[in-house]
């Protein structure tokens, strides 16, 4: 809605558009209980908000004595065309929100607010940030758009690849924010993941923007997203991939992911998203943790590591390596990483080390590692998980009478 109205009235009127949409919602709240919701609620809301905007512009122009004519395209009669129009408006809006003049935080927050319809308080809750600071970030981003008079249109062909790159990055971050942080309100975080998937599929469906790597990202997000419901047990405790009930994975999302994976193979470019999607596919398609095609997973991590030597990728590679060549081989490789400064304060490093040591039967060393990990994270679910591991190991030591 905001995207469509902003196209009509211009990015400078973004604040007024938001107010008009709010007014339209309030009007819907008064009328729909008695009159029922219209067949196309979005079209109704847009129409009402548009009329509000026009009233206000007329009032304003009378005040300032300007005779600027505002050209109003008629909202499409046919619903299908209308849906297409909204989709295109949202795409343009994503590209505007990902404008290089706006900070990364600003890009994410503005995309969520204007394209996703998230409120400031929801964004704050999702990012564990304070409301006033989110509001400020958004206000600053809007100010940049106004100052530079950025037009709500698709970027020109020569700028599209770069802008697409940042749009994908934003979508990836948005998803991760919802997926990996384990605190905060579960519902809002899940919404964040689904919104990232929606935006990615929106891009993927566009004739110009739908590059193979967009499909690769779509596949990745859908495979990961399919596991959302299985990440915690009934008591809300964190479950590792190996412990998850795979029957809870969303088969429909995995199916959609496979569709995107196929389409991602159409070009000759292989992006990081392609490799990550392939890893995610290996997990999504495996009957059990043990059945996973670990050597393929390992190949992908090795390729990722070649392209981008990051210690975090190296750590993930070792998990796969331990599956293929055994825990011993994994531990040898892991010890080589101990020198890495980036990993020194990264709790997953010690948690992974603990897991490998535990599997190797070296319980007391495992406990040491888990304790180091414990000292590096403040996330309550992770802490509870680590404590449980420590007592598990500890109990067995006690059993052995050591």
């Amino acid at each position: 809605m905001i995207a469509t109205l902003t196209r009509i009235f211009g990015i400078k009127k973004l604040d007024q558009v938001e107010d008009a949409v709010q007014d339209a919602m309030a009007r819907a709240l008064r009328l729909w209980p008695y009159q029922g919701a219209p067949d196309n609620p979005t079209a109704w809301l847009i129409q009402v908000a548009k009329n509000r905007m026009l009233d206000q512009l007329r009032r304003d122009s009378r005040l300032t004595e300007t005779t600027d004519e505002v050209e109003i395209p008629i909202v499409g009669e046919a619903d299908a065309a209308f849906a297409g129009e909204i989709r295109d408006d949202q795409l343009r809006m994503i590209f505007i929100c990902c404008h290089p003049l706006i900070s990364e935080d600003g890009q994410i927050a503005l995309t969520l607010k204007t394209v996703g319809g998230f409120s400031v308080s929801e964004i704050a809750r999702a990012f564990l940030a304070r409301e006033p600071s989110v509001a400020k970030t958004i206000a600053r981003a809007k100010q940049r758009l106004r100052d530079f008079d950025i037009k709500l249109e698709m970027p020109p062909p020569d700028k599209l690849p770069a802008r697409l790159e940042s749009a994908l990055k934003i979508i990836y971050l948005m998803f991760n924010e919802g997926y990996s942080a384990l605190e905060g309100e579960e519902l809002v975080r899940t919404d964040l993941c689904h919104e990232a998937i929606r935006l990615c599929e929106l891009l993927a469906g566009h004739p110009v923007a739908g590059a193979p790597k967009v499909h690769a990202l779509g596949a990745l997000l859908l495979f990961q997203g399919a596991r959302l419901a299985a990440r915690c047990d009934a008591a809300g405790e964190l479950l590792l991939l190996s412990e998850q009930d795979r029957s809870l994975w969303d088969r429909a999302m995995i199916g959609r992911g496979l569709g995107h994976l196929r389409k991602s193979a159409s070009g000759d470019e292989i992006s990081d998203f392609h490799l990550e999607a392939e890893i995610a596919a290996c997990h999504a398609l495996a009957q059990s943790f043990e059945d996973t095609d670990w050597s393929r997973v390992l190949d992908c991590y090795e390729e990722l590591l070649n392209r981008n030597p990051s210690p975090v990728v190296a750590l993930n590679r070792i998990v796969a390596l331990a599956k293929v060549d055994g825990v011993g081989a994994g531990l040898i490789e892991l010890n080589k990483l101990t020198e890495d400064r980036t990993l020194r304060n990264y709790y997953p490093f010690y948690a992974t080390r603990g897991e490998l040591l535990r599997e190797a039967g070296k319980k007391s060393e495992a406990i040491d590692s888990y304790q180091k990990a414990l000292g590096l994270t403040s996330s309550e679910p992770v802490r509870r998980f680590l404590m449980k591991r420590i007592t598990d190991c500890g109990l067995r030591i006690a059993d052995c009478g050591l």
Partner: protein
Amino acid sequence: MPQYILLLREAPSDFSNFSPEETQQIIGEYVAWRSKIQAEGIFVGSNKLREEGGRHVSMRNGKARIVDGPYSEAKEVMGGYFIINAANYDEAVETSKGCPHLKYNGWIEVREIEPVPVPAG
């Protein structure tokens, strides 16, 4: 089946301060309630009364006395009404209880509609 009218009364400003997500949720609740009573054959009709305008008309000393609403200063206004089917007051009250209006500080006056007798023959 006897018919009842549910007069939905509320304080005039009660809905004004909701955030977009709250608004969406409340609309959803009303739409769900409405669909439910429609599906169950309880719903007969409903109308929203326009909030702007309004007149009080009375007679004083043989002359019509007309006072303008809006009653935005008034403590409560009638937002609109529903007409429903119900076997008796208990049923009508039961239906009203499900109306989200009650959750958002409104109250509902339930009155049975006197049936118009069907002429014999």
